[in-house]
């Protein structure tokens, strides 16, 4: 019996063996020759948790911290564990209704599943945190999770420090090789951006095992492959907090900028771009709202006017043309030029001069005589030894370049502009090959095509103070633990202006600049007991209104350094559309110089001046119009909202009632004269912008 069909037993065994061989073959294929599965498994199951180090702290020159890290708390919820939460209490604490609570929960579950923790309420205020913390036992599934945030104890220097923000996709694309991930924070502007590498520190990576629902299950291989995080390095700035604060205070309700440099080191002592903002507005849970508000502000508070805007330097440029004229020998200290009301050298009667009379070099600077410097400029360009205006301009520009004009200085902040030193090819295009000095005579007095940034102007002041050299202006003085990335190297190189310029020429210019403050155009801004050298500037400017270029009120400029011997501060101030240099920029500069040199403002008269200029509202007319428009738009929106609410509430009310509300609402919509807007603007500005003592408080808006 047992031999029956025995051959088929073999066949069956062969079938068994064949099938096993097929299985083993596929296993070999999967396990020995498909490394993609190992990678897929790692992607699946190994979660690389990035451990963020603390960002570096930024200190001012006296080791006061301009910004610090604080712990803020997020209310985080894991929806699947939140059963039995006292919803009502929670809603009352958070000041939301239960419908809102449910909506948020739905959104969270939709976005991030119900088993993973998600942020329910970000960046709690300290009071709310305290209240929640007491009641946490009532809210199973909720936890308070810490996160590091920036805080600015002095509420100052927003434009300089910059802000950090969550990286977006375009940022990730631009920095694809720097290992940023979605959800990371990175410096977006200012120092935070330039020194991102230093401040960021080194992120650590922890490998964790996660399950199919992305819940973490513990460490992978007991942390064998983990790397530790290294905290960010602190920055020590040359900035002086008190000076910065006072500068910002002085620039309240003004548009403009202030830059002060320590001429001996090139360290920036203060850099104010007005209007600025309180950096604390860009942290905390109101960030998004504030950010939008600042971004849409017609005064452009995010714009760093100290280096991102180019201005015609106006009469402050006369110092440079004067030095070049003296060096090239077209004039000497004793050369005199007479002005009868206007420069006649070109026959156009332009530019005009304010003070009639005959001036030597010193007096010409002191009284900012346009004719004198037009003559100097014309003489340089017409010098036969250069062989034509083209090469003469080249000689002029060669000097000007060494004064740091016409190119980026290399300041350690983003958005620096290079200014403009016009070259002959430009004029050839404009006036044809036969252009001559009279075509461009307005450059002599800093109008025309010459453009500088304010920091370049401050740097020129430092050069004159130093008599011919400068260090590139910079904010960061030193980095904790050394300059690992060689970011400060370029600030240690001493730059010289042309060595042909002897000290005597600088002395002559300084004489003139001292005279400006002693009895010249800026005599009202002299500081008792301090020898200050300065130069005013009054710059004509135009703005496009309805497609036409319309002349606006002059920009007020002032450049200065002090004291004359062993200068410790060089400063440049611009106050947009504030009139003559002596009216706004000069007094502001003098107050800051006194503050820096003496640590305080001495004497009642000077104190009053401080008060007076702090209170002055010099917002340009066009900007006020813009703000006005925006405010009324906002009013319309709010009125509409109000109307809707009332309509729904009082749907059944009488006719008179409705009439009444209509009038009440429509009234603010009606266009108002600009004058009316001024006080209101002031209120808004005081609320949003810096210098108010309020911190993290809601913006109070008066309607």
């Amino acid at each position: 019996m047992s031999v029956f069909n025995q051959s088929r037993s073999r066949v069956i065994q062969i079938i068994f063996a064949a099938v096993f061989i097929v299985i083993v073959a596929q296993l070999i294929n999967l396990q020995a020759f498909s490394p993609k599965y190992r990678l897929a498994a790692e992607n699946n199951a190994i979660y690389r948790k990035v451990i963020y180090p603390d960002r570096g702290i930024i200190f001012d020159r006296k080791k006061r911290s301009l910004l610090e890290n604080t712990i803020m708390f997020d209310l985080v919820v894991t929806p699947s564990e939140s059963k039995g939460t006292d919803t009502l209490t929670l809603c009352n604490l958070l000041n939301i209704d239960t419908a809102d609570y449910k909506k948020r929960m739905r959104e969270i579950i939709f976005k991030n599943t119900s088993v993973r923790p998600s942020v329910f309420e970000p960046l709690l205020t300290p009071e709310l945190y305290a209240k929640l913390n007491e009641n946490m036992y009532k809210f199973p599934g909720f936890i308070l999770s810490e996160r590091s945030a920036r805080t600015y104890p002095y509420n100052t220097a927003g434009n300089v420090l910059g802000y950090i923000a969550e990286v977006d996709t375009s940022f990730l694309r631009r920095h694809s090789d720097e290992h940023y991930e979605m959800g990371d924070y990175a410096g977006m502007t200012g120092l935070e951006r330039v020194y991102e590498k230093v401040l960021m520190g080194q992120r650590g990576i922890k490998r964790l095992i996660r399950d199919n629902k992305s819940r973490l299950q513990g460490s992978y291989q007991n942390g064998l492959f983990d790397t530790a995080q290294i905290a960010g390095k602190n920055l020590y700035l040359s900035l002086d907090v008190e000076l910065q604060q006072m500068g910002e205070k002085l620039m309240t309700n003004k548009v403009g900028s202030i830059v002060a440099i320590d001429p001996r080191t090139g360290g920036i002592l203060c850099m104010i771009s007005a209007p600025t903002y309180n950096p604390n507005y860009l942290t905390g849970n109101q960030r998004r709202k504030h950010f939008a508000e600042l971004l849409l502000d017609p005064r452009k508070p995010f714009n760093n006017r100290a280096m991102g805007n180019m201005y015609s330097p106006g009469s402050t440029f006369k110092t440079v043309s004067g030095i070049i004229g003296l060096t090239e020998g077209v004039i000497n200290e004793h050369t005199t030029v007479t002005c009868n009301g206007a420069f006649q050298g070109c026959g156009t009667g332009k530019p005009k001069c304010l003070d009639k009379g005959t001036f030597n070099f010193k007096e010409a600077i002191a009284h900012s005589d346009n004719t004198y410097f037009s003559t100097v400029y014309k003489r340089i360009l017409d010098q036969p030894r250069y062989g034509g205006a083209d090469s003469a301009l080249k000689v002029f520009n060669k000097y000007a370049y060494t004064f740091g004009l016409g190119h980026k200085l290399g300041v350690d902040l983003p958005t620096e502009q290079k200014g403009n030193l016009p070259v002959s090819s430009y004029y050839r295009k404009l006036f044809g090959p036969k252009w001559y000095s009279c075509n461009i005579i307005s450059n002599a007095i800093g109008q025309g095509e010459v453009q500088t940034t304010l920091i370049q102007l401050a740097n020129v002041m430092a050069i004159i103070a130093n008599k011919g050299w400068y260090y590139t202006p910079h904010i960061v003085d030193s980095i904790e633990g050394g300059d690992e990335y060689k970011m400060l190297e370029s600030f240690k190189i001493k730059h010289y202006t042309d060595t042909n310029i002897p000290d005597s020429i600088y002395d002559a210019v300084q004489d003139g600049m001292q005279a400006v403050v002693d009895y010249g155009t800026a005599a009202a801004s002299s500081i008792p007991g301090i020898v200050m050298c300065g130069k005013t500037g009054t710059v004509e400017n135009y703005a496009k209104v309805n497609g036409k270029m319309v002349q606006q009120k002059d920009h007020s400029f002032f450049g200065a350094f002090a004291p004359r011997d062993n200068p410790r501060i060089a400063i440049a101030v611009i106050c947009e559309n504030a009139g003559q240099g002596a009216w706004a920029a000069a007094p502001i500069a003098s107050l800051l110089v006194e503050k820096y040199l003496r640590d305080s403002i001495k004497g009642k008269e000077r104190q009053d001046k401080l008060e007076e200029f702090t209170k002055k509202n010099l917002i340009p007319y066009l900007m006020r119009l813009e703000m006005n428009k925006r405010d009324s738009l906002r009013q319309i929106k709010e009125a509409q909202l109000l109307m809707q609410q009332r309509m729904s509430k009082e749907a059944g009310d009488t006719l008179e009632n409705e009439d009444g509300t209509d009038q009440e609402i429509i009234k603010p919509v009606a266009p108002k004269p600009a004058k009316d807007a001024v006080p209101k603007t002031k209120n808004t500005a005081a609320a949003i912008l810096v210098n108010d003592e309020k911190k993290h408080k809601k913006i109070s808006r008066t309607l």
Partner: protein
Amino acid sequence: MNNKNTSASQGIDWFVVWLYAILVAIGILCIFMVEYKPGTDWMQTFVSGKTNYSKQLIFTGLCIVVAIFILLADSKLFTAFANLLYAFGILLMFATFFIGKSINGSKSWIPLGGGFNLQPAELCKIFTALALAKFFSRQETDFSKLKSQIIGVSIALAPAVLSHFQHEDGLALAYLSFFLVLYREGLPPQILIIGTTFGVLVVATLILEPNTLAIILTAIAVVTIYFLRKQIKRKKNILLIILSVWVLAVGIQRFAVPYIFNNVFECYQSTRIYSMVGKDYDCSMNRHKSKGNEKPARKPDDYNVRQSKIAIGSGELFGKGFLKGTQTRGKYVPEQHTDFIFTSLAEAFGLFGCICFLSIYLILLNRIIRIAERQRSTFSRVYGYSVASIIFFHITVNVCMTIGLFPIIGIPLPLISYGGSSLLTFSILIFILIRLDADRQMVLR
């Protein structure tokens, strides 16, 4: 008969018992790997009875008790009750239609109370094996006759048909394994060949474009006619046969296969089969579509296979080590303690471990066939082959499913997968064989 008085352990094939014990132990460790959470006291959870591995341990204890009973029983008992048990099993399967309970969409369970459920189709494997053995051991059975063949096939497939109507196609498929037994006992090999050809044709239909396949089939027919042209001249019949085979083949790929997928299979089954070859199946063509409240067709339903392949593939040559499988710990593979238990082993021990593990199975199967072949009675031999075929079929389908060679179907890995019924069934199957083998000197009817 003379040995009856001697010890019950006499004649027992201890080698199979050892293999059985090793496999069950591996199974428990695999389940332990799946369920293990770091930081828990595993000694305590093993005895707590709350975790699956602990439950499996209890089931193993139960199986040992049952095995001892079987080993102590008289082997005549099995021949005597074979038909009766089969009838009982079929009755139970019918009963499920009335008193059955739906679990995971298949109405194939009979609630026993106390949270336990019985799946008659599982038990019926044993009964069918016994009944088939009984049928062949009858003196009057002559399997070369068509009538006997039909009866044999019917005995094997009756529970399968019932299982299909209970929506338990995995179990139904398992009954196909009896064809191996039938083949061993004299079923014409043509049936297996035709069956295999049909299978190849179905797969080809899925993979290739309909027209390409038709052209290939035509080409094969033409080439065959060309090579057989001399024989065809002598015998015109051959041409007719070739042509009819060609028509049949094209007909199958053109009409029969789409018909099967659209009308016979459920939507999810078609989707799984299509996804195995990397294609989408449009459920809107399926007849069953409008019947149930099924969800609309989604992307290829290959999450399970993908995760299973990732887990296995990431094991590489020597595996990640015991309890170190990241995919297993992360619970990425669904149903990992039951149908996909192989993945945890493959991830932890790699190719090397898999081959060792499969070798144990292969040794077991060979041993069972050796046992079957050394039986003097037809009953024992047929039964032995049934056991080997069932186990082989389960292993093949289960492992092929996890490595992406077979569509996903709920079939456990014998002795390894978590589950009381399955463990008990395979234990009974094996221990009855051991009992029968111990009495191999007897001629059982």
